[in-house]
């Protein structure tokens, strides 16, 4: 069971390749599909290796991908401060 | 050191009057620069950013000395480019703010005057005019920045410009300048000149409750409903300040009602025309003039600033000689009172426009007159004031000219 999962916002992606390159577990690869702007967004090729470290999310300049940890049933582990986005 | 934490109490009438802590009530013998500083304080201005330039420096020197005793901040920035935008940061943080300069500094500030117009930042720019162009005559008067006050920055925008002709007016009209800035969310140009700035006269500063002050047009809308550049029929949007949780965006790029850049023709059209019409539609309410013996006049002398006082002498002598001379003093130079001049032009023979420049506001008079009356300039290259005889000579010439 994977420790993490990513979610990808396909329409924001510009296929820069940062997430593919810097994922420590090589979970991602650029797909052959196109988004509406003509870019190849990434897709998950090794979901079982995802640790939910969110390095992909930190690198993505287009805010198009995020990774997070999931529990044994596959649901995201809630991080309270992340959900609120800091104190308002 | 004492912390002063009480806000100015609003009177029960709902009229906003000056905070007494900033009002130096009394009878003073001070020059225009000093009176302007007191006017700013009386208007509720507690922040300024400046850069020294003769003959304006005394305004901020006095402000630097006064403001730590009334609660506020003055900072001398590294140049006018900085001063002219630091004051706008002060405004967006919640303060009333101004800066003070003369010709060369005014030129440097032009980009930011345009930024204030575009972002609708209420603020005051004081220009104590001196001889130009370039370094020119730092210690001597001129009135040659009048067109620059209106057209100095790039693009289409409107400003308001006031011309005091005495230290008393430097006090009174500075308050008016701040009030107009708040009412119309526009940068106001306070066009003094070196003589008015450096001459000392009696200045009466009334009690604070006799000074009317226009507060910031702050929104009462919720964060969800507030649109930074939305107008509900009224052409002036409501403002919010940084740090209040509105999360608004301000940009000098062409923007829509959300404040977001939207660089399309329709948005440009709507925005820029509103920036113009919010001032021009209100020209009758904004314009202030001083008129005397206009009825039945053959010649009307149109003047402003220190020149209006020299012209007064010339007008008196002309009247002693039996000429029918009216006086129209521009207290507001911009927006220009076109309609007033156009209506007058149908009734008089000629306008005489003395100015300490080679012909600036006279062009507006001529344009507005539309050929219905003749226009005579009494130009001056700057560096001193006119001799009343110079103006009288032209009044006499104008009286003799053939009616159109």
């Amino acid at each position, binding site marked *: 069971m994977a420790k993490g999962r990513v979610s990808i916002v396909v329409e924001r992606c510009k296929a*820069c390749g940062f997430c593919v390159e810097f994922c420590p577990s090589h979970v991602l690869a650029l797909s052959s599909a196109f988004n509406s702007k003509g870019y190849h967004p990434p897709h998950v090729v090794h979901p079982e290796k995802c640790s939910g470290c969110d390095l992909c999310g930190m690198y993505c*300049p287009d*805010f198009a991908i995020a990774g997070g940890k999931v529990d044994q049933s596959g649901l995201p582990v809630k991080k309270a401060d*992340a959900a609120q986005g*800091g104190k308002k | 050191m004492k912390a002063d934490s009480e806000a100015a109490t609003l009177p029960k009438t709902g009229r906003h009057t000056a905070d007494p802590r900033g009002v130096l009530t009394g009878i003073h013998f001070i020059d225009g620069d000093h009176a302007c500083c007191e006017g700013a304080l009386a208007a509720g201005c507690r922040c300024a950013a400046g850069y020294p330039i003769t003959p304006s420096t005394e305004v901020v020197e006095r402000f630097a000395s006064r403001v730590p005793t009334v609660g506020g901040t003055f900072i001398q920035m590294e140049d006018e480019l900085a001063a002219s935008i630091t004051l706008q*940061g002060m405004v967006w943080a919640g303060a009333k703010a101004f800066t003070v300069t003369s010709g060369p500094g005014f030129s440097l500030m032009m980009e930011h005057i345009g930024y204030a117009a575009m972002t609708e930042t209420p603020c005051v720019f004081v220009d104590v005019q001196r001889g130009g162009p370039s370094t020119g005559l730092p210690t001597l008067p001129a009135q040659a920045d009048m067109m620059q006050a209106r057209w100095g920055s790039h693009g289409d925008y409107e400003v308001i410009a006031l011309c005091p002709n005495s230290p008393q007016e430097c006090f009174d009209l500075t308050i008016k300048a701040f009030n107009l800035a708040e009412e119309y969310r526009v940068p106001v140009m306070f066009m003094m000149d070196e003589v008015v700035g450096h001459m000392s006269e009696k200045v009466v500063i009334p009690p604070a409750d006799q000074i009317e002050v226009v507060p910031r047009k702050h929104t009462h809308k919720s964060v969800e409903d507030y649109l930074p550049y939305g107008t509900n029929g009224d052409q002036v949007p409501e403002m919010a300040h940084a740090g209040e949780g509105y999360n608004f965006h301000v940009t000098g790029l062409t923007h829509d009602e959300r404040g977001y850049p939207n660089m399309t023709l329709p948005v440009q059209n709507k925005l820029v025309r509103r920036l113009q019409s919010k001032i021009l539609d209100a020209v009758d309410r904004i314009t202030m003039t001083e008129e005397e013996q206009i009825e039945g006049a053959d010649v009307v002398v149109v003047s402003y600033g220190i020149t209006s006082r020299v012209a007064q002498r010339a007008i008196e002598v002309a009247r002693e000689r039996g000429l029918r001379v009216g006086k129209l003093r521009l207290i507001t130079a911009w927006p220009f009172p076109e309609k007033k001049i156009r209506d007058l032009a149908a009734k008089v023979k000629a306008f005489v426009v003395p100015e300490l420049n080679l012909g600036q506001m006279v062009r507006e008079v001529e344009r507005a007159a539309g050929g219905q009356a003749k226009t005579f300039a009494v130009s001056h290259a700057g560096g001193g004031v006119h001799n009343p005889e110079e103006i009288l000579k032209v009044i006499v010439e104008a009286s003799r000219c053939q009616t159109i």
Partner: protein
Amino acid sequence: MSDDLVTDILNPVEPFLRSDRVPHIWCPGCGIGTTVNSFARALIDSNIDLGSLALVSGIGCTGRVAGYVKLDSFHTTHGRAIPFATGLKLANPKLNVVVYSGDGDLSAIGGNHLIHAARRNIDLKVICVNNLIYAMTGGQTAPTTPDHSTTSTNPYGVFEASFNLPHLVEAAGAVYVARWTTFHVRQLSRAISEAFQKKGFSFIEVISPCPTLYQRRNKMGDGLDAMKYYKEKSRVRHGAPTSEVGMTMTGEIIVGKFVDRERPDYQTMMRSQYAESLGERFVEQTEMVCS
């Protein structure tokens, strides 16, 4: 692969974005968006009160950050973010003011304001995204462009020495000076958090790729190639003398926290001076009540 915004894994940057303006205008492989991720995480980690945060930017690609973040944000004129930010801070000392702008904006046209704000130690957090070029206007030489690079205004190669920004701002008086690259996402975030804890002029330079202009014109590949270069050629040297951290076109990039010192900030010194000179007559500036 999901088509729409999948809401089960939340991107921590999302609450800070004006989502109605995304996708943004930055090029594929541009690093500015990456710096925004680090910035967002720093905001979360430092527990900053977002209601009292203001972000000011100048003109340029990095200047567009102001338009994408959901904060009180000001997109000002070219080179003048720092004086505008100074005005905000002076009139409302409770504001946390961040200046987020590019190398050309801050060190060329804005250079004078940069050194004076550092000298005065105005309490500002300056994030300088350095892509070594004037990107927005099409790739002209910036004061930071390494020599021998090709730009549109030096088509035969730059022959001027380039600024060593950490050295410049340290000499001018900054109390916190760090440099990272867009490869160093976590360290950058930590540096921004540290700057938030610091009172005084803090300057964080972030080396970032400009694939369309700098990389392409100099035949250095794309944004990903730049990121790999940063990974390979960066050397972390905390406390390195800033005189030694100048950059060249193909050499090492020294990164780290170079300066972290204590000096009273402008407003502290101002209050103390007034109190000393005026005694009881000093009236401290209150919150601006302007309504």
